């Protein structure tokens, strides 16, 4: 596998190196650079703005406190940040599901404020778009290569944070089938992504 995660090409990784030694300005810059994507992830997982804001805050406190443990040779800074933020959101989501009545139905009318934010979410800076274009093309190709049912399963599992059994109920499929479909989809995705690199 070719390493593409060198900090030279990863502005967030450069910032992480300075955050690790306690540089507050770099932490702020890191927040400004990455929080729009991480917050969009929280919003879609938690479907409630205040909860998503709390999760993002908690996650960034953890990021500040554990920045020194980031190893650039193991993966991109975005991956490291996404792991912390995603785990924080999934924790919130599981606690929240105990009181499921609050969860906004993603297919219903929903929280207008939240939906507005997500509608505005497509307005990305031209630089960001250009930077991500080639990478995205490859990723999009790999996603397209999946069967449509697999695509949908992966996408719903990721954006809504559903478990195997929740996915089985949503797609009215047997649990074993969901597990197999997801496993195959993830493995094809990986093979495709790495095939594109080497």
């Amino acid at each position, binding site marked *: 596998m070719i390493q593409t995660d060198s900090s030279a090409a990863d502005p967030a990784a450069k910032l992480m190196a300075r955050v690790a030694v306690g540089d507050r300005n770099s932490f702020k810059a890191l927040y400004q650079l990455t929080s729009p994507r991480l917050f969009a992830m929280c919003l879609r997982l938690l479907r409630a703005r205040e909860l998503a804001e709390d999760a*993002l805050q908690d996650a960034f406190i953890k990021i500040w406190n554990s920045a020194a443990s980031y190893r650039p040779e*193991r993966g991109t800074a975005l991956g490291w940040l996404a792991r912390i933020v995603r785990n924080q959101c999934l924790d919130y989501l599981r606690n929240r599901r105990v009181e499921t009545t609050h969860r906004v139905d993603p297919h219903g009318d929903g929280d207008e404020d939240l939906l507005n934010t997500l509608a*505005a979410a497509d307005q990305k800076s031209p630089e960001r778009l250009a930077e991500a274009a080639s990478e995205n093309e490859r990723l999009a190709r790999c996603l397209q290569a999946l069967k449509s049912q697999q695509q949908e399963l992966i996408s719903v599992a990721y954006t809504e944070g559903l478990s195997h059994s929740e996915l089985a109920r949503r797609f009215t499929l047997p649990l074993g089938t969901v597990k197999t479909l997801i496993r195959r989809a993830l493995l094809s995705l990986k093979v495709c992504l790495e095939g594109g690199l080497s």
Partner: protein
Amino acid sequence: MRLSDSTLINYLAAEYALGTLRGAPRQWLETAAARNATLDTAILRWHGRLATLDQFEATPAPEIWLAIERRLGWTPTVVADASSFWQRSGVWKAWSFAATIAAIALVIVILQQTPSVQPQEWRAFAVLESPQQQRMMVLASADLKTLWFTTAQPLAIPAGKSYQLWWIAPNEKPVPAGLLPGANGGRIALQVAAAAKSQYVALAISVEPVGGSPTGQPTGAVIFQGKLLNPI
């Protein structure tokens, strides 16, 4: 479980990052990743891949960063300080809201719920209080062209009424600064077309007929008022 099979490692890492791996297996994997560099790398890479696949962006409200700074102990708690300063100063009582001459110096356009999709510098601008001690935090963009209002409870504007914002300067009549839209989630963004003037020292919100005061000066009850935290 042993972690010798790279396919298995990758599969578990992928399900972990996706979020479908739950309960005890998830906890086990977290513990294992802390000791196993290969597994940790696989997990990080899957988070990176999935995060890259997901291209949505949504800029968090400006007060989220301020809250992070506060929690890390980097900034004093401006809200409490400002409020006590305000209560001590008593400057407020000097303002009269009864005057009737129109002096429209600023045009404020109601823009949108979210002030900006682009990262922006925001600073605490004012803390407004209602007679019932309800607080409203006001943030301003660095260029002072956008104000962002946050309340704990959404503002319930009565039917047939508008809430109007006013700039206050010492020994001068209040200057109308725009109408607040019905708050969604307790947040309002107003874009100020002209930069605020340096003599303004406070903001106030009054209840007016729909469309704003017919006289150009406050005619109804003042429901929020507060001093600007820093000189403009």
